[in-house]
């Protein structure tokens, strides 16, 4: 009946780390599950990520980070989204993120943190459940 719009996802690599195997695997898995996926490439500042997300009108931002700079960079993305009145965008993240940092990131507004070993199907389900 109604035209179900495809979920649009921005996969982004904040900071300087160049490990994007995970980002690319996730991007492809989300695409194969029927979502529209944009990948930013490496070395994106929080400002660039938020700008792209708004321009591309995405429902979800997936932040992949393995450099250890997550406590600085991820809350910054959330803060900028709020400033741009775009906090309806679901923000999730993945990478090498220690357990003890996860609570703080969630308090800052990251909806979920997926650590190494998470099946892509779990991430797909999470997005489908949480994007209205």
């Amino acid at each position, binding site marked *: 009946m109604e035209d179900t719009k495809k979920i649009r996802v921005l996969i982004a690599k904040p900071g300087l780390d160049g490990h994007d195997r995970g980002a690319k*695997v996730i991007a492809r898995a989300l695409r194969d599950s029927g979502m529209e996926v944009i990948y930013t490439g490496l070395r994106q500042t929080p400002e660039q990520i938020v700008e792209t997300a708004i321009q591309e009108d995405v429902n979800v931002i997936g932040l992949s980070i393995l450099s250890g700079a997550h406590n600085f960079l991820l809350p910054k993305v959330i803060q900028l989204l709020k400033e741009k009145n775009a906090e309806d965008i679901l923000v999730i993240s993945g990478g090498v993120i220690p357990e003890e940092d996860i609570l703080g990131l969630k308090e800052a507004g990251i909806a979920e943190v997926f650590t190494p070993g998470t099946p892509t199907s779990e991430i797909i389900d999470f997005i489908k459940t949480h994007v209205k």
Partner: protein
Amino acid sequence: MSDKNSLEKLRKEKTLWEETKLRKILEKHPERFEKFYTNSNIEVEPVYTELNVQDLDYLNDLGFPGEYPYTRGVQPNMYRGKLWTMRQYAGFGTAEESNQRYKFLLSQGQSGLSVAFDLPTQIGYDSDHPLSRGEVGKVGVAIDSLKDMEILFDGIPLDKVSTSMTINAPASVLLSMYIAVAEKQGVAPDKLSGTIQNDILKEYVARGTYIFPPSPSMRLITNIFEFCSKNMPKWNTISISGYHIREAGATAVQEVAFTLADGIAYVEAAINAGLSVDEFAPRLSFFFNAHNDLLEEVAKFRAARRLWAKIMKERFYAKDPRSMMLRFHTQTGGSTLTAQQPDNNIIRVTIQALAAVLGGTQSLHTNSRDEALALPSEDSVRIALRTQQIIAYESGVTETVDPLAGSYYIEYLTNTIEQKAREYIDKIDKLGGAVKAIEKGFMQQEIQDSAYRYQMEIESGRRIVVGVNKFQIEEEPPKGLLKVDPEVGRTQEIKLKELKSSRDNLAVREALKELHSQAKTDANLMPVILKCVKCYCTLGEICDTLRKVFGEYKASITI
């Protein structure tokens, strides 16, 4: 090569065995899978015999250790003479903290240093650059100027240890800093031994810490080749790396193929810059990964050695045997470590380290069990180092050279990996060489396809990762993980401020001006970079000067 009649007899006997014995058991108990594959997707048969390696010619294909084509190793007696160098990659926080870690490692019996730099250093930004925020001291030590480097090696005699530095885009700057520190210790450049990674091509393909576009990057690399051939005869001028290519998802075959294709590009660049092959090729070194598929990994190292020897002899007409010897460092596979049940990683690392030793590595880093979670703690690093020491002193595999040679399966795999790698190299040649292939995204796409296939195999359950998709348990979050002091960034910023107010800023400006003008010519930039470093220009100032002349690399994005 085998006798025709005996082979014929063997073939008949094997067919008979397959149709009677094997078939009978298969009818009763089907095998666990319809087909079996190595990690590189090479199909694996139930049993290997002489039939699988019937064309193998001992003298031509294997030879004796220390002789062409070096399949069995680069030294005649390998570990009977000297064990491999045990070299743990380390560095975090400030130069002071890393200096302490190095002294700890040396006190535990480690035989060489391996420096990890933080990401701003690897990308040529000072710690006070806006893009450095949150990254300073995280994945390695922060080095902004010669001052930091002096602290990093304080109390470590550089004529006694060999040092490997994982630095690529700004390799010439960090090498210059190392030379300058040594000079202050009274050690001349020709006494220094060690390695700089200096491999920009795999940065474009897999690791991501590039700065400049390919052409000026290749120039900086050949500048180092030339400088070192004249001044640093014991220095490895490059470490052509398959490690990160494998970590990004490549198979063992792709690891060999893309690494050697990059190697070919460096040799060609140096020859085009006017160097003769035997002038620089003996100082080329390699860096490979070791994953869990033990026998395929051993075969991979042997195949890589043989293929490189042939390439150097047949394609580049090298005469010096040292130009044909593929010497390599190995690191166990970071991407094989699991965050779940991290102690299991000790076992994985043991298998991988064993593969490297059975494959004839020259040096080895063993990963620590907690590396899927954080930087390794001191306890974890000690276990990792002990793993190497147990293999070296207790396992017995070091007492004879290349002990798996002659195994039908190992020789079959060695042949197959070499052949498949060669097919890839031919394809890359047709695309115009490694640089062109990278610009077209060819290697990146191949690697991503493998990475995706691997992930899907895990999710379908075809591939088992213990503790991840089978044998899971409920776990408490691990304790005692190493945390980098979040104040490192501020400490470095203060140090930079102090440096800039105490150094001779006139000399700095002059040196940077000279660098700028020489970058526009085709001069060898090493001497002027050394000059900049010695008057305490910062890494960021030097790289920014070069950015102005060379521009920056823009990656093509493939998913």
